């Protein structure tokens, strides 16, 4: 009992996602401007911002796919590329469409499992969990957006990681899938894992997130618990629009 408590406490102190003063420019265009925030363990952190605000770029910096011009990004207090067990440390979903088209989910997940010496018996398990068992041996090129998104999720879950970094994970999912994903992310947070999720569906975020980080034009403009961010507004959507109102880069005009 005592050991369990100690275990959970230590897990709470170590698994987290941290971005410190990150700036990044793409060909002189400043995309991230001194971005700092923390996603804490045991919480779902909603990462919100208008199109082109820098959410995906931030996540790529965390995964060291993009190197920041200045600042640092840490997962579990270390740079991700230094991780000895990457798949156990981070599960990530960037874009479901970025898949090797001429493979099948099964061979694809086996290659991921091999790289990290993961138990292959997890593969049918995650495929079942994401509802892809019946297409495990079909070519990925024949998949719909939602199916690709589910496959990305099963890949992210494969190592049962301590941190989840998910860029618009419910994009393309059907209503049942959205509910399943919401319950899953909540469950992962309850298990003490750190969950960072970006999404444009604010009503969905309101049901899911414990903490909110809002980014606009590469700058963090608001962080806090869901209630703090919503304070004084009728809904998260109202809060978001009024906070980012002047900052949306792409506005529809009539």
């Amino acid at each position, binding site marked *: 009992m005592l050991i369990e408590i100690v275990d959970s406490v230590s897990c709470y102190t170590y698994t987290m996602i941290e971005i410190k003063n990150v700036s990044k420019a*793409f060909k002189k265009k400043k995309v991230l401007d001194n971005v700092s925030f923390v996603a804490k363990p045991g919480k779902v952190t909603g990462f919100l911002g208008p199109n082109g605000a820098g959410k995906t770029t931030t996540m*790529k910096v965390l*995964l*060291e*796919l*993009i*190197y920041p011009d200045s600042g640092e990004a840490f997962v579990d207090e270390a740079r*991700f*590329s*230094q*991780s*000895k*067990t*990457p*798949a156990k440390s*981070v599960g*990530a979903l*960037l*874009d479901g*469409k*970025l*898949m*090797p*088209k*001429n*493979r099948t989910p099964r*061979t694809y997940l*086996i*290659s*991921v499992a*091999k*790289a*990290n*010496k993961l138990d292959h018996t997890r593969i049918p398990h995650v495929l079942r969990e994401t509802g892809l068992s019946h297409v495990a041996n079909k070519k990925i090129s024949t998949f719909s957006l939602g199916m690709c998104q589910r496959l*990305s999720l099963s*890949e992210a879950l494969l190592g049962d990681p301590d941190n989840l970094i998910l860029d618009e994970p419910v994009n393309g999912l059907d209503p049942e899938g959205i509910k399943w994903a919401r319950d899953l992310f909540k469950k992962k947070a309850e298990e003490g894992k750190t969950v960072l999720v970006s999404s444009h569906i604010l009503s969905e975020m309101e049901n899911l997130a414990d903490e909110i980080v809002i980014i606009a034009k590469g700058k963090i403009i608001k962080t806090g618990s869901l209630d703090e961010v919503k304070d004084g507004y009728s809904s998260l959507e109202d809060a978001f629009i009024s906070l980012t109102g002047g900052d949306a880069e792409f506005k529809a005009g009539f």
Partner: protein
Amino acid sequence: MNSFFQVCKSEFYKLRTQKSARILSVVAILFYPILTLFAIFIMKLASVMQITDNTNGVKTQFSELELMKSVGWSSITAGISVAGVLVAIFAIMFFSSEFQSGSIYSTLIATPNRIKLYFAKFVSLFIFTYLIAVIGEILAYLSSIPFLINVEGQNLLLTVSSADDFRYILGSPLMLAFMAVICLALGCLFRSTSAGIIIYFLFSFVLSAALAGIALSLSSANTLLARIFSGIQAFLPFSGSDAFLSNSTSDLSSSASAQLEYVFPLDHLQGFLVMLLWVIVLTFASLLLFEKRDIK
């Protein structure tokens, strides 16, 4: 654990389950016995033909025995000429297709250490292509048995007796593996299959032929200039493997090409070193850029 060995296993698995790599490697393997049988067929054909010397009208006919004796280990490994092109294509794709499909993201999330990933691809491709060549050679040898075991009462089956034999048997797969890792580097540098393949063809055929042509046309006018062009050609990536596997003896003075005064000759060892140098230079360059550049 995301150890180097684990990542190698993953990359090797990707390679052997990739449909295009599978098809291309099976075809590459088959070309070894095909070209060996072709060489044997040519010799058989020559043995039944009379060759007339135009200057004095004397008709000569070589015996089958004499002709078949010229089927050597170089015929067994001749398949590398076609296998090289096929292997080059999937070696380029091994990296470039990851960039083009975007699966490089997931690959790097599973193995965020890029140096580890690069060398895992390097090692698995090296072993994979070496094996292709060895299997091809074994099939080629087996296919030669029925034709060589009894030629006019003599057993002409190939035996391993000299260092030159080893140069073909073990060195030719090595050259194929070198070519593959050079192409891996091209795929990683250009991040595009078509760009990689264009550069490969440029280096291995177009540039090589152009330089040889220029050298030839200059040879009568200016030997020095011709030698320079021929020298550049000799240092192109895949000329190294040609020199290493060339039929001529190591004694260059007696080789045919050395008699053309302008040709810049490389011996076997020099050819080997040219290949090795390209492997090192291109691997280093693409590794450096792969490590430093963003994956956007």
